[in-house]
């Protein structure tokens, strides 16, 4: 599990790689929460994430709440179909904007 944080056109992009489960979620949470601090536009790139457990989904929701407190939005990029399905079934999907790739993710913010 690796987390990298970068900035694209003024938007903070948190890129995760590997599985996010109860073992790795705390690490993901630490990096993501500090990267999102004070921000109102966040892209989380999940292209390299194959599995998100319940604990992982809860970290996403935590970031959503953090950003929402600043009246911002979170865009998820590259979310696999399986993960989207789980997120749809459990209601987590309702909180996020989805985009195919980083470019579209940045575009999504311009349209908002």
């Amino acid at each position, binding site marked *: 599990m690796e987390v990298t944080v970068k900035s694209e056109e003024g938007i903070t992009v948190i890129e995760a790689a590997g599985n996010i489960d109860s*073992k790795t979620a705390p690490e993901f949470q630490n990096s993501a929460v500090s990267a999102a601090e004070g921000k109102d536009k966040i892209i989380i790139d999940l292209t390299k994430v194959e599995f998100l*457990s319940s604990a992982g989904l809860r970290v996403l929701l935590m970031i959503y709440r953090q950003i929402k407190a600043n009246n911002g939005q979170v865009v998820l990029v590259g979310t696999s179909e399986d993960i989207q399905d789980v997120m749809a079934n459990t209601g987590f999907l309702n909180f996020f904007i989805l985009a195919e790739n980083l470019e579209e993710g940045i575009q999504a913010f311009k349209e908002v």
Partner: protein
Amino acid sequence: MADIRIDYYPTHEEQGIKFRRGHALPFGATMVPNGVNFSIYSSAATSCSLVLFERGEPEPFAEITFPDEFRIGNVYCMIVFDLDFERLEYGYRMDGPFNPEQGHRFDKSIILSDPYGKAIGGRDTWLAKPNWDNIYPYRSRLAFEDFDWEDDRPLELPIEDLVVYEMHVRGFTMHPSSEVRNPGTFSAIRSKIPYLKELGINCIELMPIYEYDEWENSRENPVTGELLINFWGYSTVNFFSPKAGYAATGKFGMQVDELKTLIKELHQNGIEVWLDVVFNHTAEGDHRGHTISFRGIDNKTYYMLTPEGYYFNFSGTGNTLNCNHPVVRNMVLDCLRYWAADYHIDGFRFDLAAILGRAQDGRPLSNPPLLESLAHDPILAKCKLIAEAWDAGGLYQVGSFPAYGRWAEWNGKYRDNLRKYLKGDEGQVGDMAQRILGSPDLYYQRGPTASINFICCHDGFTLYDMFAYNTKHNEANGENNNDGANDNHSWNCGWEGETDDPAINHLRHKLIKNAFAILMVSQGVPMVLMGDEMGRTQKGNNNTYCHDSELNWLNWSLMEENSDLYSFARHTIRFRQAHPVLRNSKHFQHRDYVGSGLPDVSLHGVSAWFPDWSESSRAFAVMFCGDHAKQGSSKDDVIYVAMNMYWEGLAFELPHLPNEKKWYLSVNTDLPHPADSFEIGAEPLLDQQNTVWVGSRSVVILVGR
């Protein structure tokens, strides 16, 4: 504040596990900072240990015996640190006497589920083959309780405004024709919310969704070789856990979130959620059954036992939960509070609820403490409580169930009277008048809202089969057609089963429409069985508990095949929702107390104002005065319903309407679709304002405005 408690540090360590004395309350396993608080009670165990597994592993990674000083009274409690909330499975091992005459059946070789566990592992995917050698098959798990409900809460709709739809989670969307992404799941019900709204219902009653084992008593049909299982689920393994196999995400352990998401979205669409709850027995069976939890933890407390230590069987399934024991009563209360507060459940229908009014020795109580506690509980204060007011031990309490001003009942007499009347039995009209007025003979004090009106439910024939079969055809259940009820009050209309005869099929459809029409104009709370609105058949099987097949799966193509039934059912539901005079919370007074010129309700026959109550009469009419709607607080049309179950048509003389109002035709079940019903507000004026012809075995509904 919990984070800074100075006592959340380990005091003990064993097998690499750090732990300390826990909190006695709440019972169950609760997440606390850096750990989990475990608490469980047993009145007779001599020792208890906590058994910890990594998810799915065959052997536990640790087993910690509760040190003596961790027991307070009969409660064992301990906090264990550094556990993985998501991967943990836990259970208990209890030592104690095996002495059935004294009521004790301890067996320390068995690992036991936590009665208060919030999720169960082991049956994560529906019908996935279990490992029968698993040393711990139904594993307690933790559940995240941080679901984001936003501004949702139970809807608290007035019960008299509800139209209830009884459904089976899997049966509703499992058929390929349902065309949903995750068939047979909570999630798939969400995809069908637009359908439920179009139909017009505003409450779903889910057949049991507490964790049960679909493999229980599984067997092959000796004739067909078909696998027979427990499909209905009236056999609870754990009262606090939703059935994982009903969740598309059950294999990821996310059934709690999936179910809550469904409930939240139903609420957003104005639909209440009721649960069919089975507190009368558990899945452990009698003395020959498997020990899963209760028997091994505190047999004498949880079950009603005979003086010899065997199980009383008022449920017909082997054992009876000892629900008026103070400790069990509290468990039931804790459970319902949990579902109301944490899942936002709007109502509970109690299976074989008469058992909940029995004492520990089985005697019926006049003032049962459990029922009283539920009726007065602050958290359940706005929940609907509905009793199936009978049990398998012969206690029949329809009309006399201890209600404490709160409880409603499945009105079994409504079902029986309607069925007999609809098939044309004589001597029914007197009782029918009571049923259509909300059964004041049964619920004089309690009002019509005590009556859940239904003609069909999961137990018995579907509405279509009611008019296609004279007798049950349960051969597919593999019990030589000996199971299931024999008093169906059904009529096949001249041919047993499917037929091409257009006259028979026309009659069947007409009788189904009659049933919907009468159900939707009756005072009380109507309940519809899933699929009856489109003529679902179970091929004459009246006890389909064991089939995971088309016998139980709703075939959505029937909606088109029987489009006349579907659009008629939809019309009658909308008609009810449009007319408050059909949805009163108090009984009629049979007088004009608002000065409208008509009494609030009146009964008629072929002669206006003169109903014929004689034995051979099969026809009568009822007129509801709209100015008396909702006890006079709401304005509505006058509604006149003429019912003729005689085999020939009859002319009904119409009562004269005051204030130059006219009669308009809403429903005539004698006419072929689409002339059988007219859109609300677009009803045609009756040519003849003083009589209406009601065809043989037909219902006519008029509105006066």
